[in-house]
């Protein structure tokens, strides 16, 4: 029955469209509230983000992939390194190990224009002042 495999007792196993919309709105409000708080740059985290960018550039050198460094995107506390290309070739794959410890998550997906996109997301670039 429970195709989503949730264990939470309040969840009855089926999302209605209205519930999904409400959940999404609630999450958006939480994010807006977080983003509107006064924050300072987390320098250590920013250095990690920059290090990962450097390693990624090294790994993809010569592959023709476009590597973009996007701090504070889509939110001020989040940064993304995105790699886009038709055939992305990584050398020095041993650099994935330090990146694995630094990045919050990695996504690899096909785009509609025939290219692949890889996003490495870094949370915590800013911290709110309590």
């Amino acid at each position: 029955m429970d195709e989503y495999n949730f264990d939470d007792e309040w969840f009855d196993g089926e999302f209605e469209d209205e519930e999904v919309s409400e959940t999404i709105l609630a999450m958006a409000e939480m994010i807006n509230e977080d983003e509107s708080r006064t924050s300072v740059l987390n320098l250590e985290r920013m250095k990690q983000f920059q290090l990962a960018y450097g390693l990624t550039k090294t790994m993809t050198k010569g592959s023709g992939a476009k590597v973009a460094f996007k701090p504070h995107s889509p939110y001020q506390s989040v940064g993304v390194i995105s790699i886009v290309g038709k055939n992305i070739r990584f050398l020095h794959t041993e650099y994935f190990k330090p990146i694995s410890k630094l990045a919050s998550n990695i996504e690899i997906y096909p785009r509609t224009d025939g290219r692949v996109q890889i996003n490495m997301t870094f949370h915590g670039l800013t911290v709110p002042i309590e």
Partner: protein
Amino acid sequence: MNFSKCFNAVSSVVEEANKQFGITWRINNNKKMALERSCLAIDSLAEEFDGVSFEVNIDDITMEIKLSLVCGEIIVKEKDHKFYEALNNTIGLWVKEIDDSTLQLDFVFPSIWDRAI
């Protein structure tokens, strides 16, 4: 997806290649075991990300082993995810799109052969 385990596919291609490389080369068992560990991790990736197929190719000259996994979109959140384990022993990772919903990941491994003499 019902598929042969990755290492089974690799083993059969390695066996064929071994015959071709002849007596001047022999398989290094430690390297083979390292390859097997990576294959187990790739099996996990195939299961998690809707793997469609495996393909194994061995370069005649460099003897590098390329293992291609066709699968869906990949999302890795955990620091100890099998994705990183699969990459442990590789010398290259190639990623390309097959179609709007499918990727091909090529894991390139170094040769598992040493000179026999």
